[in-house]
């Protein structure tokens, strides 16, 4: 897990994706090859919008740290991201506006390394106060 994690770190610590200039598609996670244009695609790295809305969600039970919320989020430019939603299970609803933040995901037992990554939180300004 460790090399695989750190190799992609810049994509986990900020919402970096890729964009194909040939067909104007955005990708998250970043892709080197466009599935629409393949070798004719022209790929560039871009920052993705950090706000979006909940397309679907589920509350996971029976896993470490559960219950927690997993959501499929559609960003403002229609890119979809699967992420944990840092809120209480009863707070989430379809269409909820959310924004990106960086939170702890877990740690590697023996190595003691703490993993951080993108999570989403209910959008501030909705009167939401994060507990963390």
């Amino acid at each position: 897990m460790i090399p695989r994690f750190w190799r992609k770190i810049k994509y986990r610590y900020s919402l970096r994706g890729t964009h194909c200039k040939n067909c104007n598609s955005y990708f998250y996670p970043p892709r080197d090859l466009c599935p629409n244009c393949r070798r004719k695609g022209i790929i560039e790295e871009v920052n993705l919008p950090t706000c979006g809305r909940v397309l679907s969600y589920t509350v996971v039970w029976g896993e470490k740290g559960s219950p927690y919320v997993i959501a499929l989020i559609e960003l403002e430019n229609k890119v979809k991201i699967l992420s944990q939603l840092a809120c209480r299970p009863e707070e989430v609803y379809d269409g909820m506006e959310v924004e990106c933040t960086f939170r702890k995901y877990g740690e590697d037992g023996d190595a003691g390394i703490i993993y951080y990554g993108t999570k989403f939180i209910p959008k501030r300004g909705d009167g939401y106060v994060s507990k963390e």
Partner: protein
Amino acid sequence: MRVAIIGVGCSKFGELWEKSFREIYLEAGLKAIEDAGIEGKEIEALYVGNMSSGMYLNQEHVAALIADYAGLAELGIPAVRVEAADASGGLALKEAYMAVASGIHKIVVAAGVEKVTDVGDAMKIASSSADQEWECFAGANLPALYALIARLHMKRFGGKEEDLALVAVKNHKNAVNNPIAQFRREISVEEVLNSPYIAEPLKVLDSAPISDGAAAIVLASEEVARKYTDTPVFIECAQASDYVALQNRKDLLTMNAVVKAAREAYRRAKVGAKDIDIAELHDSFTFAEILEYEDLGFAEKGKGYELIREGVTEIGGDLPVNTSGGLKACGHAIGATGIRQAVEIVQQLRNEAGKRQVDAEVGLSLNIGGTGATAIVTIYKR
């Protein structure tokens, strides 16, 4: 060249604590060879579907190991392992089908095997069919990913948790009469609805178990098949793939790989969805069976719920689905499931399904890897 199944065999599915990996597949393989009435020396190649012997058992190179332990080492036949998560069995079937259809081999064996009860976290290994870096890292497991699709679909088309429960109830009822099934007992809608959530809206009793088990079939060219049996079952098989991670799929309410594999299998078999009399589907979660009704063309998009509500897919209905009990109640021995489905359809088409018997001439099986990144559809005809 037409391809026929001439022999089938299955171990029991379930928690086979007392049996080793080798014992399980040997049992299935011997039954299939005996059923076909062939000699071991007539087998020209072996295709094995297995998802994770490495993670489950610390044992790789299992195709040669199986050939070896099955007494085929002196013959030196090619032994090939294929992997497509829980579609590994279906993929072994497809590779075996192609080997015979091409004319290169006349008699081959396709097998599937998984031994999961020797390790602790079977769900974590099964969930490795999803994207580890971009799905599982976020805390998603297989039930969570299916739940995300299920919520969207149910909301859009008016599906209820009771509808999902009906799938589990039906499949458990069918398993009662299947001697190899893991759960040979009926359950009620209330029991399903009262079982705890694992990933809302999916509950414990919406989920297939992760089981031990093995299954094997013998395939032959038409000419050879006719020498061995009066009841060859002819097959056509097709496979398709899709984005692994849900977030990359344009339409979450359709499993594109299922649509594509079905279209090609129907074309090769010269049949349509309306011609199918019986099907074994991939109900790793109850919701998946409903989605598959639609993507195989048994129901229009959004109307899958009607088939289960109206009893169409029960034994006695117009299109019985999962007469074996399905993954839910027969058990889901990951890499063995795709072959186990073939065993059920062949037994049904040969009128050997005992109390589960339905009247059928054309059958279909659908084996899926993970959340649908691999789909294999096989059509069977007497």
